[in-house]
């Protein structure tokens, strides 16, 4: 063994070995440190990445919210203006009802309704205002209201009616959703075809079926529609495309919020799309009553008896809740009686006429009588000193005191 100790080679080898061991251990340490550093960096990176994602999303949401707020209030203004204009138009239509101007007024009314509907759709997408409160309305009227809000309303044909009403809360949303469906149906079918509406009673409620004879939807469009109607709700106006496609996004939101269903997954027998709106029982009521039915034919002929109090008593026989007299509607009266000869309409008989005239005469006489009486009173001695230019006032003052 000792013979090797003198060998310098051995020493060199030993030194080299030790140096190598030190080097390796150092490298290892450095490598470990580096690995840790890399891991740390990687963690940091993912953290940053998720933070970035979050902040981008937050910024997006904030921007969306801001857009929504701005659009919501802008649409509210527009909706208010459209409603106001509708009132003005109604007034004008009544005022110029008998002139040729009416035709143009009706056309402006139509344009105004479409304008109002657009604003309403955008408002719905921005969680905004749907419009003024409505009374309960019949399903038929809600469908017609929807019909009036689209451009080609003449092409829409309502084939059936049902005796159901829609609750006041659901009138506007259902009308708007239907209007969007009808807009789609008329826009994607040729101008000479008719869009048919059938209203049917089903066990779950009422179905409004809209059939068009258009080109139908491609698979892609159908998928988008299904997505918007069933699973994924649109939010805001982003992602509607250019030109924006409001229809299904608006309908989907309305369905979710008011609890009715719309499906477009079947095709119409005419080749186009069949859209079905299912209104559940919660949204349905009895048919709203007509405020006053038109005079029934049977009621004619049996003339209303005139009480002894004369015509005025007949007019003010009932009172409103405020205690004000309620005016009776006058019965429609034919100028020329129909084929069936009816008894003479109850007017005043001759004796009543005489009574009325007599009462009138007595009234005027008594009026004339009291005037000199008063004049006499003012001439009485206790009033003698008063000036004679205000006899009425002085006599009244005397009576009070």
């Amino acid at each position, binding site marked *: 063994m000792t013979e090797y100790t003198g060998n310098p080679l051995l020493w060199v080898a030993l030194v080299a070995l030790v140096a190598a061991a030190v080097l390796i251990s150092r490298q290892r340490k450095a490598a470990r440190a580096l690995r840790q550093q890399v891991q740390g960096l990687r963690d940091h990176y993912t953290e940053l990445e998720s933070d970035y994602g979050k902040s981008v999303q937050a910024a997006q949401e904030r921007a969306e919210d801001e857009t929504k707020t701005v659009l919501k209030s802008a649409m509210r203004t527009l909706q208010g203006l459209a409603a106001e204009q509708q009132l003005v138009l109604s007034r004008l239509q009544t005022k110029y009802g008998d002139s040729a101007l009416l035709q143009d007024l*009706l056309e402006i009314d139509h344009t105004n309704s479409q304008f109002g509907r657009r604003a309403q759709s955008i408002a719905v997408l921005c969680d905004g205002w749907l419009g003024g409160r409505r009374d309960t309305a019949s399903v038929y009227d*809600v469908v017609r209201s929807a019909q009036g809000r689209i451009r080609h309303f003449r092409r829409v044909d309502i084939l059936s009616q049902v005796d159901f009403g829609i609750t006041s809360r659901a009138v506007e949303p259902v009308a708007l959703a239907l209007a969007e469906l009808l807009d789609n149906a008329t826009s994607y079918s040729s101008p000479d075809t008719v869009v048919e509406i059938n209203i049917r009673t089903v066990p779950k409620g009422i179905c409004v079926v809209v059939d068009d004879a258009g080109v139908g939807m491609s698979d892609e469009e159908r998928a988008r529609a299904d997505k918007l109607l069933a699973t994924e709700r649109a939010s805001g106006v982003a992602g509607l495309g250019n030109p924006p496609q409001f229809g299904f996004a608006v309908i989907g939101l309305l369905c979710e919020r008011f609890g009715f269903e719309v499906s477009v997954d079947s095709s119409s027998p005419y080749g186009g799309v069949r859209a079905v709106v299912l209104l559940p029982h919660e949204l349905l009521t009895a048919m709203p009553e007509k405020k*006053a039915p038109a005079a029934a034919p049977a009621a*004619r002929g049996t003339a209303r008896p005139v009480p002894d109090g004369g015509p005025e008593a007949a007019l003010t026989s009932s009172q409103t809740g405020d205690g004000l007299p309620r005016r009776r509607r006058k019965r429609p009266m034919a*100028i*020329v009686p129909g084929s069936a000869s009816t008894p003479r309409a109850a007017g005043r008989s001759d004796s009543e006429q005489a009574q009325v005239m007599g009462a009138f005469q007595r009234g005027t006489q008594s009026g004339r009588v009291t005037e000199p009486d008063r004049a006499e009173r003012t001439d009485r001695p206790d009033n003698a000193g008063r000036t004679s230019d205000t006899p009425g006032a002085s006599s009244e003052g005397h009576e009070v005191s």
Partner: protein
Amino acid sequence: MTGHDGWQPEAPELVRPYVITKGRGLPDEDDLSLITLVTASDGQQQRPARLSPEEQSLLDLCAAGYLSVAEIAGHTHFPLGVVRILLASLMEGGHLTTRPPVARARLADREILEEVLNGLRAKFG
């Protein structure tokens, strides 16, 4: 409650007049003037269900006898032109018939009256 609380069909604001008229144009003034008399046709017992509520109400109104167009409009809350359009479409469908306004009564011929008077005088006077 404004003046026309008597005859208001369903929600006036909800269904606009141009939908009720189905976008039809105004009828000819000569066909349906203010004083044209309108009544329901005889065979309107089998009233079709396809008529709108407004058209049904107009038919009810006209069922009693002859009414002038102006009067019918007065019993509805619709503008006069809208009523005329609806009446025209009902006439087209054969649910209503019109009668031209009643001709003015002509004064009796003076000569005939004088002759009658003379005759009476000759006989009794």
